[in-house]
């Protein structure tokens, strides 16, 4: 066991995966000698050589397109997109190609690959270094979407994603890169995809969240406990395919639900959680299903702390559904 930041856990997971499987490659903009702008790939070129960890030209379309071709031809590419905000030039490759290759070829060609990218707010990045685009990808059959919130899960989920036979979008909450630390087992292990984690047990209200919102929700739960409200916090970890039965069980347990994410509300991921519950467990609901999310605006800079859901806003929703 080592006590690592989430960023170190990602780095460790990459190294382990590369040591275990020589077909694993890492590439993207500035991931080589510089080690990536967040240093997530630090030391990889030194250990594995330029053939296995290398820089690419400034084209996300090229990065993902090439990754698909490599994956088709037996390699296990782990492509980095420098910020999730810059994934959109590759949207066509991800949505039209990686996600649909197996289906359209009747299983003849597949694209087992991982796209790693830092996402979310918290670093004063403004409109273009703060976005949370998970809903776009969760609306795309053929992709898997994974978001860790602890160092332990970051490493275990990353290794599982690299071993997965399907394309995985691995979104790393950049706000947590250096702000959370935790025990991380040495060596290889994996956290099964499509399983969620109960971050905190509780009986009165269920909060669904992921990524950098997990500590925020934990803090809100802590405050709620002080006023006698027992809150269960569920860290979804894999957003797609989702463990829907798990979500329904957790929702039914309390009958009061708050869904939290950083992305804008409208057509955001929280809508899907609400809809699943409203379709399959509405009779267990004792309060409106609430959402605490980023506003339906672009992401501002100076006022990002007002844009991002914080424990005050989450707590307010918890109190409302509890009082309903």
């Amino acid at each position, binding site marked *: 066991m080592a006590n690592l930041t989430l960023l170190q856990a990602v780095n460790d997971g990459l190294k382990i995966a590369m040591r275990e499987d020589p077909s694993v*490659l890492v590439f993207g903009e500035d991931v080589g000698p510089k080690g990536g702008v967040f240093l997530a790939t630090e030391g990889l070129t030194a250990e594995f050589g330029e*053939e296995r960890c290398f820089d*690419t*030209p400034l*084209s996300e*379309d*090229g990065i*993902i*397109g*090439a*990754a*698909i*071709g*490599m*994956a*088709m*031809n*037996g*390699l296990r*590419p782990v492509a980095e997109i420098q910020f999730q905000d810059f994934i959109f*030039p590759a949207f*066509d*490759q991800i949505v*039209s*190609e990686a996600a*649909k*290759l*197996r*289906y*359209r*070829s*009747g*299983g*003849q*060609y*597949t694209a087992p690959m991982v796209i790693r990218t830092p996402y979310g707010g918290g670093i004063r990045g403004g409109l273009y270094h703060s976005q949370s685009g998970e809903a776009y990808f969760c609306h795309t*059959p*053929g992709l*898997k979407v994974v978001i860790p919130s602890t160092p332990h899960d970051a490493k275990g989920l990353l290794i599982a994603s690299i071993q997965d*036979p*399907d394309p995985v979008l691995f979104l790393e909450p950049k706000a947590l890169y250096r702000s959370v630390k935790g025990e991380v087992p040495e060596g290889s292990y994996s956290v099964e995809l*499509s399983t969620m984690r109960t971050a905190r047990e509780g009986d009165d209200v269920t909060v669904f969240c992921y990524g950098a919102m997990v500590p925020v929700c934990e803090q809100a739960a802590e405050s709620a406990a002080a006023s006698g409200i027992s809150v269960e916090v569920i860290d979804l970890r894999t957003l797609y*395919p*989702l*463990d*829907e*039965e798990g979500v329904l069980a957790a929702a039914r347990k309390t009958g009061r639900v708050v869904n939290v994410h950083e992305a804008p509300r409208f057509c955001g991921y929280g809508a899907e959680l609400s809809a699943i519950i409203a379709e399959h467990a509405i009779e267990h609901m004792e309060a409106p299903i609430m959402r605490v999310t980023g506003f339906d605006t672009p992401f501002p800079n100076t006022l990002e702390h007002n844009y991002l859901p914080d424990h005050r806003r989450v707590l307010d929703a918890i109190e409302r559904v509890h009082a309903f």
Partner: protein
Amino acid sequence: MSAYEEFKVLSADGSAGDHDPGLSDEGLLHCYRTMLMVRAFDDTAMKLQRSGRIGFSIPNHGIEATQVGAASALKPSDWIFPSYRDFGMPIYHGVEVVEMMHNMFGNAMDSAKGRQMPVHFSFEDPIRFVSISSPIGTHIPQGVGAAHAMKLKGEDSVALISFGDGGTSSLGFHSGLNFAGVWKSPAVFLCQNNGYAISMPTEKQTASDGFAVKGEAYGVPGVVVDGNDLLAVREVTREAVERARAGEGPTLIEALTFRMGGHSTSDDPTRYVPEALVAEWEKKDPVPRFEAYLASRGLWKEGDREVLYEECMAEVKEAADVAQATEAPSLETIFSDVYEEVPDHIRAQGEAAFDLLRRKGDAAAGDGEFPL
């Protein structure tokens, strides 16, 4: 005037000077037969569409030599990242026409399980002919990625990446050629300049002096070839393949040819293609040109075409009948192959669909007409 001279082997009378095509008589005749088979397949597909037996096809008439010449330069261990107009490549490499017809009918035997539109073929065997995608250009960086993997794995293979003049404006062209240049990938880019991208003539597509020059933007050498000259296409492709195998990097080939039909069965080219242009290209038909060459080598005589075409037609028609008689894909195929394993939510949707089928009967097939 282009700085790139158009490479040709065959003169109008069929002579090829002392050019060595590097093919046996049998090999030459295989090329010829493939061109006729493409024509038979094409003609049949058009008729099948007109008579409502299939929904859509893509004309191939006029561009057969480019496809067959290029395909003939590949080994079975090479990979093809094709365009939707590349019927000749799988046929050359031995894919059975009935396999292709299964795709045209989207039936249960279709390798794509009826999920794709007609002409969106996918084959693994006897050569990798990678599943065709409709979005233009996306396969270009993919081919480069596959080629890079060949290099990293030490394979002696190359990736042939084929696209049209319109495809050069796509994002994939830009990223694919750039990456291949930097990586010195064992990739061969085949730009089939057939004069049009649907209704857009090349001068509306780009102001560059042809398409081969675009390679210079990426450090990828370009070459222009007469696309209706099978031996010339074969030759430049062989050279490009050799360079690629030798680790010398990619080449961009521009093959000058012409789409003699519409863009697709849904298109009326008389709205935008000048008649005179069609007449001009009719004279350059790649089939009689290759026949003259075969004749000069004593491999062809007047009347052979009709006989061989009839043979091809018989095979294609038989294949069409077999494909049409084959059942539609099962309902289950909607839900499989999204992931390696079917996730719970998709399984549940499939079960609900079967349940509805049992309770309310089958859905009625629509009769939508494809416009493009």
